[in-house]
């Protein structure tokens, strides 16, 4: 298949791995964070860790949008979904994410009209077809997904659809990277930057990673060879003593991003002063709410919400996993009390979550030994 087979060539992968091993030989331990959950998934699905030298370690970042939504926001979503007359639409992964008072799936079982959609445009279609219902879309995701919500809002306004609103939880990747770099337990030497987020926001906006924090970042595609090559580019920078922002994913990502998508986001949404991330806490200007011009489509204004803050379960260490401070299997409840069937933490719920990736691809037994300090 075009754009797939050429990035999965095993012989080429071995050559890249050999080059990586030669570059890394004799060097201190290098910890490289893949920010994006999609990369985490590629790494486990294709066994990329097995190709790496001992001193190159991959650390999983906070780039699974499901994983970073705090429990209080899930409770707010359930409260909206359970209101009479509401049809609540969501991406599938959010159904099983536990809030303080259960999941959307449980709300659905109790009779709430909760529906899975693959696009916010499908939610808008439901609103068009059922004018007697209040149709709410649960806006989740980084800058990859925000444009589809923005486009949907623009269409809703153009069509004059009044029974549609968005419960907006879109988050921004750069404030999260900055929060990780500023956290006290930070030990990251370089980053594999998100691919499709960068399609939208471009690569220039990562300049602070190199300029302020002296770390290399390479924007990467999602096929196994993309990730391997990006890792090689990071290690080469570290070996050369360079810290630059590089783009491995040039077949898609432009330095300036997608200006139409950015304009659509800017028209419909505005940065929130602060937003709570699971595991990272409150981060200033790290999320999007609807702009004043689109206030009438804002579910948070249309439906009064409690906005309670809910503490994570004590046993859950998703926060440390999301910051890359511990590996999934170092969590106290990993694979015992917390499994994909009965998750406690979000990292085990979403298939992009680091814990679910470890669990589903059996990356446990071989790596039970504690990581060197």
């Amino acid at each position, binding site marked *: 298949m075009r754009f797939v087979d050429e990035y999965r060539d095993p012989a080429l992968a071995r050559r890249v791995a050999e080059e990586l091993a030669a570059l890394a030989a004799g060097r201190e331990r290098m910890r490289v964070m893949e920010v994006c959950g999609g990369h985490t998934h590629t790494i486990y699905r294709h066994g990329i860790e097995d190709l790496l030298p001992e001193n190159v370690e991959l650390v999983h970042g906070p780039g699974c949008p499901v994983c970073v939504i705090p429990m209080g926001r899930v409770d707010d979503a359930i409260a909206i979904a359970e209101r009479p007359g509401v049809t609540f639409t969501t991406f599938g992964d959010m159904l099983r994410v536990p809030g303080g008072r259960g999941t959307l799936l449980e709300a659905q079982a109790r009779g709430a009209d909760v529906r899975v959609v693959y696009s916010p445009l499908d939610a808008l279609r439901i609103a068009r077809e059922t004018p007697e219902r209040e149709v709410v879309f649960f806006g989740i995701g980084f800058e990859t997904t925000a444009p589809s919500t923005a486009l949907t809002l623009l269409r809703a306004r153009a069509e004059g659809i009044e029974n549609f609103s968005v419960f907006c939880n879109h988050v921004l990747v750069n404030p999260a990277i900055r929060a990780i770099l500023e956290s006290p337990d930070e030990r990251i030497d370089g980053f594999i930057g*998100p691919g499709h*987020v960068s399609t939208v926001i471009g690569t220039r906006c990562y300049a602070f990673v190199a300029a302020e924090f002296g770390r290399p970042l390479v924007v990467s595609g999602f096929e196994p060879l993309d990730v391997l090559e990006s890792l090689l580019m990071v290690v080469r920078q570290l070996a050369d003593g360079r810290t630059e922002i590089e783009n491995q994913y040039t077949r898609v990502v432009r330095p300036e991003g997608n200006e139409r998508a950015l304009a*659509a986001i800017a028209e419909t949404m505005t940065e929130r002063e602060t937003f709570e991330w699971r595991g990272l806490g409150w981060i200033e200007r790290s999320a999007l709410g609807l702009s004043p011009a689109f206030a009438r489509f804002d579910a948070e204004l249309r439906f009064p919400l409690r906005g309670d803050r809910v503490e994570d379960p004590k046993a859950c260490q998703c926060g440390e996993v999301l910051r890359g401070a511990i590996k999934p299997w170092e969590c106290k409840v990993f694979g015992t009390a917390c499994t994909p069937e009965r998750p406690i933490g979000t990292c085990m719920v979403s*298939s992009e979550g680091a814990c679910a990736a470890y669990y589903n691809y059996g990356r446990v037994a071989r790596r039970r030994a504690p990581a060197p300090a």
Partner: protein
Amino acid sequence: MTTLPGRPISAPADAPACVTCGDVAVAATVAAVPAAGTAVVERGGAREEVATELVGAVAPGDVLLCHAGVALERLRGAEAGA
């Protein structure tokens, strides 16, 4: 993720990751342009309608990166024409 009948192209069966909410999008080829702002894209024999306002005018044969029912970018260069 929840498996539903009629999975769209943006959630291919060979990708167990949640491609709707993660930072994952898929490349698909434009098969038809039924109206301005809309394209029917094809990948692996499956077809799906996507919104194209964010990538400008498209034509059959263009390869688009699609996510959550929206085309985010067009693939460029020798690779797109390969």
